[in-house]
Each structure stands twice: as C-alpha cells, then as structure tokens.
C-alpha cells in the first residue's frame, strides 16, 4: 500500500506563514509521498516561494511539485524553482521522481500542463500565430507528460499536473472557461501510456473525483475543492501488505 498526500493551489503569500505547517505534523506518519499540484504561490515571487519553503521545512516524506500559472505571474519562475529545490522539493516539468516505500516503487511524472479545452470544444493549432502558439504549447507539454510517464518502470505510476486533463473534475466551474482550465490532450497523453492516478489542481470551483476516458482515476486537489490541508490517497502497489490507510485524525 502506497499512501500519497496531495494538495494544489495553496497560493502562498506573505500572509500565509503558519497556515499549513500545523496540519503537516501527521504527514510523515500517514503518507509516503507528498504531491503539490501547482499554484503554490499567490503571484509567483521568490519571497512567496520562500514562505512556502519554510512552511514545508521538517516534512520528511519526499515532496514532489509542479508549478502552476500563478507561479509564473511575476516572471520569477527560476527563483521560485530554485527556492523550492533548495528546500528539498523536487519540482517537475517533464521529468520524473521515483520513490520507494514499503517495498513498492512509485514514479511521479509531472508537468504544469496548459489549457485549450476538451474534445469537441477545444482550440485548434490553426490561424493566428498567437492561437497556434497557445495550442502548440499544450501539445508540447502533453508530449512531455506522455514521454515522462512512459519512461517510468515503477509499481505505481502517478501523473501530476496543474491544469485539468478531463472535464469531470471541472464540474461546478463555468462552462465558458473550460478551455482555460485544461485540455483533453493531457488526458489523452495519460491514457496512451497508462497510470494509476492523475492528480491536478487549478479548478477551484470544480469537483474532486473523475476518471479519464481510458479509465484512470483523476483527483482535483485544489485546496478550495478539498477544503483541507491535503488529501490522502492509498493505492495498492505490488500486492504486499504494508502500513494501513490510516485516518490522520
């Protein structure tokens, strides 16, 4: 049994110090891996990343993150990445991280993702250069996700992203903004090579649970959706018995 804690959209700012740390005390005892699904900061400054890094100091389980659109806003993404990496957090963009826990190997493939919409109602790589650039970026990110996920040879494979790969977990959001919340290309990439779980954020008014067209579990862990410091998911790995999926409370 592998236990994965996950949260996205923490939107840390100078006023956020002390808001998360008290809820992480139980994390080491109840999780094997901690995933951060982007929009970690309010407007993507180095200072905001440092506030979050200090908050996560002392978390001993491997912590793996992707960045979100907010983390890019102040054009300090390099510094944000560095501050988090210096704090021991693995920040993925087309890469992977493998963790071993209780005889089970878990691989995480992570990308920010991007928008574009969902099959039947999505943008096309056509027309103005700006529109082509928009959709080409999503295609590039989706290709990167597929390749990273496909490279994993672990018992459990997790796809981590900020933008949504399916419409299910957007339920509650306004239909008009779906193309800015995610892209079917991300879901298609996951279905092409397979995974055991997809974790994303970004859709604050969405729904936690969904499934890809290929039948892979998807969870939207945006903090306004889960309304907790994190959510805990337990997955069977290689069938060996291990620590139970205990309620942190």
């Amino acid at each position, binding site marked *: 049994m592998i*236990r994965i804690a996950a949260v996205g959209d*923490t*939107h*840390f*700012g100078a*006023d*956020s110090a002390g*808001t*998360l740390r008290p*809820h992480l005390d*139980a994390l080491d005892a*109840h999780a094997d891996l901690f995933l951060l699904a982007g929009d970690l900061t*309010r*407007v993507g400054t180095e200072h905001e990343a440092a506030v979050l890094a200090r908050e996560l100091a002392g978390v001993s389980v491997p912590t793996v993150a992707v960045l979100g659109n*907010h983390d890019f*806003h102040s054009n300090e993404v390099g510094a944000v990445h560095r501050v988090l990496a210096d704090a021991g957090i693995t920040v993925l963009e087309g890469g992977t991280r493998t963790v071993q826990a209780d005889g089970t190997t878990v691989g995480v493939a992570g990308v920010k993702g991007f928008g574009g919409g969902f099959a039947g109602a999505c943008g096309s790589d056509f027309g103005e250069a700006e529109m082509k650039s928009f959709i080409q970026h999503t295609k590039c990110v989706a290709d990167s996700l597929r390749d990273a996920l496909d490279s994993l040879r672990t018992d459990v494979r997790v796809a981590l992203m900020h933008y949504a790969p399916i419409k299910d977990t957007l339920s509650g959001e306004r239909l008009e903004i779906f193309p800015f919340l995610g892209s079917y290309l991300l879901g298609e990439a996951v279905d092409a090579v397979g995974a*055991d*779980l997809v974790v994303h954020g970004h859709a*604050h*008014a969405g729904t936690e649970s969904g499934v890809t067209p290929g039948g892979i*579990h998807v969870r939207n862990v945006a*903090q*306004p959706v*889960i*309304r*907790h*410091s*994190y*959510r*805990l*998911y*337990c*997955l*069977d790995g290689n069938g060996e018995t291990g620590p139970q*999926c*205990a*309620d*942190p*409370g």
Partner: protein
Amino acid sequence: MTHLSEPDEPPQYLVARVKDALANDPRGGELDIRVKIAGTGVFLSGSVSTPARRDAIATVVGELLPEFDLHNSISVTDMSEDPAPERIE
C-alpha cells in the same frame, strides 16, 4: 486608485474590469473570485486561504466601485479538520 464606473455603464463591463483588477492589483492576484453587480450592490463570493486576502480583495473592490454597496461573501478555507483518506482501487 481610479474609479472604474462611468454613468450608465453596463454591469457586464464593470464585472470584467473588477476581475481584471483583482488579478493584477498587487494586493489581489486572485482569478477565482466571483463578482456580480446587481442593483446598487457588488457581490463577491468564492474562497481564499487567509482572512487578510479576503479583506484585501474587499479593499480593492471598494476603491474601484465606491458608489456601490459591497457585499463580501468570500469564505476563508478552513483547514482545521484532518482529511479522511481514500483508497483508490
């Protein structure tokens, strides 16, 4: 800060400009606040992570639309309860 509203301006345009201000004002950085203008009131809803964020948003909107009654229903996410685990099968 400059006031946004012009006499008889349709509320749809005001809502768009308020949301743009909430995204770009240094005190904001918020894209997910719902803004509705009805009658003489501006109604805010959604959730943020700290009380200071909630108050800052109200300040920004109050400066932009001083002639409107401000109704701030933005909630602060309560993380005091530990989450129940889910087994994925």
